[in-house]
């Protein structure tokens, strides 16, 4: 090339190089780079959507299984009610005594007690598995600063590397990570019943006391002692004969989430004492005393 044009050509080449370089580094590359980042974020969000949809389908399956399971309402209402009806229990025991032919020696209702529920690790509970399905949060798509994902209730990092702005998402379900009883408020009301009678009468009594069509009366102690002829006198019951049995039963009725509310809305009306002292012995007691 003619040396007179070389500076012009060289200058042009330099200018072109500068234009291209400036354009590439200041406009083109950042643009494509940002587009690439957005696409990567889109892929991440799509993966998160797939994960959430998978969790939703699992929840739907759990929902269907529960809907298909036999209802426990009737069984619970009968066997583990929330209402305590002591009168009904006394009636039931008396009815079992009367219909079986045994004679009631004593009937004691002892103080109720709290039944400690079976300890179950949180990880072994189905509800914990379900709670884990709610731990995946949204991936932030705005330019706000992202934070590390909060640990899930089970101590695991949320699925899919979730990154959400602080406070932007709260899982609707948080399961307890502590091992503990599933049943929190199960209470028992114990009765101790002593009856005497023939063995066949005793068997009938036990069958009727624990009849399956009534609230479960769960025995925790059963003692049967022979009460043959010549055995010690027992007040209020027939004399012993060979083959008789003294049966002592300790059992409980149980209540799930018992309702202990006290309700007494009536107003006490003014009254006067009766002519007969309420502490005077009744005729039957007086006769027995004589």
């Amino acid at each position: 090339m003619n040396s007179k044009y070389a500076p012009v050509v060289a200058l042009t080449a330099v200018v072109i190089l500068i234009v291209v370089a400036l354009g590439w580094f200041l406009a083109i590359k950042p643009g494509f780079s940002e587009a690439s980042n957005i696409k990567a974020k889109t892929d991440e969000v799509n993966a998160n959507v797939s994960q959430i949809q998978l969790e939703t389908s699992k929840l739907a399956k759990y929902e269907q299984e529960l809907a298909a399971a036999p209802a426990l309402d009737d069984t619970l209402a009968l066997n583990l009610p929330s209402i305590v009806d002591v009168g009904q229990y006394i009636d039931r025991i008396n009815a079992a005594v009367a219909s079986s032919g045994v004679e009631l020696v004593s009937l004691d209702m002892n103080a109720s007690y709290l039944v400690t529920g079976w300890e179950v690790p949180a990880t072994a509970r189905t509800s914990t598995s379900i709670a884990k399905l709610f731990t995946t949060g949204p991936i932030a798509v705005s330019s706000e600063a992202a934070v590390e994902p909060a640990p899930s209730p089970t101590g695991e990092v949320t699925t899919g590397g979730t990154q959400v702005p602080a406070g932007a998402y709260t899982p609707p379900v948080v399961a307890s990570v502590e091992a503990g009883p599933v049943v929190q408020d199960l209470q028992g009301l114990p009765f101790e019943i002593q009856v005497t009678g023939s063995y066949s009468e005793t068997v009938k009594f036990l069958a009727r006391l624990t009849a399956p069509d009534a609230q479960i009366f769960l025995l925790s102690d059963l003692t049967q002692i022979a009460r043959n002829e010549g055995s010690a006198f027992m007040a209020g019951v027939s004399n012993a004969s060979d083959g008789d049995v003294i049966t002592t039963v300790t059992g409980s009725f149980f209540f799930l989430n018992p309702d202990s509310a006290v309700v007494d809305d009536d107003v006490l009306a003014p009254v006067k004492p009766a002519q007969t002292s309420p502490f005077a012995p009744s005729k039957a007691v007086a006769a027995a005393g004589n």
Partner: protein
Amino acid sequence: MNPVALKYEAALFPSVNLVPKDIQERRKMRAVRFAAGVAVLIAIGLVVIAFLGALGAKAAAQSGLNDASAQQDEALQKRDSKAPVYDSYVAREQEEYALAQVGYGEIDYSQFATSITNTATNDKSSFVELHMLPPSPTGLGANSTDPLFGTSVGSFTFVANSLDAAEARKLVARIDAVPGVASIHATAQKYTNDSNQIFWQIKGSGVITPVVLTMRIIPEDSVTGIDVLTMVDSQDTDTPGVAPTPAPSPAPSASSEG
């Protein structure tokens, strides 16, 4: 036409460039400069086109991200609307565990006790006392057994009178054969005077096995995965089912003989 000119591809007519050489040089320089300017403009144009392409790619990517974000919100809303499923399962767990904890200890004593007394007693042996400690929601009823003989869901002790030691030994064997009891063993034996009659009295104990548990109120189709049998050792599979008889004689045998 000049054939020589044709042969050498020369101009047909002779010509003379009358433009001065410096003018020619300036023209050429302008042309070079113009070409250089065009090249620079082309380069700028290409950069602008590439920049617009980048902007388009970014806009398209942003649109895709917005769509994905909308799908994500929709998916989250749909999933979170199923939060009541968790509450339902928590309630179901409580119900199933409560029924299991209370129900697993149930025994049909009218059948169980009768099966023992029917099988064990005869005119040479009778019971004086039977004491059963079945399982309950608060624990297994096994606190009266010697661990050497094994433990199970419950335990029971008995006192019986026999005519002699051999009959007492047979009594123990018969009790041991009853489904629902195991590890029957005598703990004390001696002569005793009962109603002015002499008997060989035997005290013994054993365990109550899970085969007598009715499991009546325990949900068969558990949705929470509870397995009650992990709480009680499953052993035999036979069940008692002996009907009670009118008088299975807790009475002293000798009395009935006499």
